[in-house]
């Protein structure tokens, strides 16, 4: 059974979680170029490596961030948005 640690509820089976995509910074649509905006909307980085991802714990409704090595499928750490330094 694969396990993932929710920052609020602790270690749980992966079946309780939903993947929410990579954490991506949105450029300011008022000031960025069309090319930058199109890149943000349409392009994704598929290269494997250590990535920040959104994950959701269904039973408690908790969104959090997991830093995961997508090559090895190993999670380095998880934390709530904005609490990166506290972990």
């Amino acid at each position, binding site marked *: *059974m694969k396990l993932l640690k929710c920052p*609020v*509820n602790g270690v*749980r*089976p992966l*079946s*309780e979680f939903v993947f929410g995509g990579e954490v991506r910074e949105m450029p300011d649509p008022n000031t960025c170029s069309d090319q930058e905006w199109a890149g943000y909307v349409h392009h994704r980085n598929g290269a494997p490596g250590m990535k920040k991802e959104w994950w959701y*714990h*269904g*039973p*408690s*409704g*908790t969104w959090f961030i997991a830093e995961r090595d997508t090559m090895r499928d190993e999670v380095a750490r998880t934390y709530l948005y904005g609490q990166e330094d506290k972990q």
Partner: protein
Amino acid sequence: MTTARQQTPIAFAQQRLTPKMTVAHGMEIPLEFSSAEIEHKRKASLGICDVSCFPRFGVKGRNVVQWLKENKVEIPDPNSWVQQGDSLVLRLGNGEFLVEDQLEGKLCAALDGAVMPEAYGVYKIRRNDAALMLSGSHVRELFSEICAIDLRDGALLPGKLVMTQMAGISATVLRQKFNGEDVFRLWCDGTYSPYLWDTLLKIAEEFGGGAVGLSCHFKEMP
């Protein structure tokens, strides 16, 4: 003209058991499924009681702790619960609370009527839970069949609650002393509850348990 009466969310699954019904807090709910003798046997082995009729109040937000303190509600730690009079106060994660009144509790009505200024960072959550009370010597075996995490006494400590999946359904679970015996409380979304009820009942029957009505736990029910 007749007035529509609220039904327990599990009503559909309970129909085939033809329970004797009562009305508590405006909701039709099973009072007895069978004779008192049979129900007490079930309760000792693995009894499943529908208590969805208890009033519930949900609230969350940035300032929820401060608002509840102002309304004289005890604040438990995250993922913990406290009993305040005849009401349970559950803290779901950090910033969300579920308050449930048992038969005599008045806390939900008080909070529902309390002043909640706009733009204060406090939001009511409409609750549509099915609520169950599980009792008996085989409850932990039932959990081991439908839940991936450890809910034995050493893992689910008194005062703690867990939000996890039971038979694939998101549920909140805690253990409480009720009338001197250990019981488990379980809340899940009402729309999934007929499925969960049927699943729990199938397992309970294997252990010689089954459905019990409100009168089995609450002697004061008419």
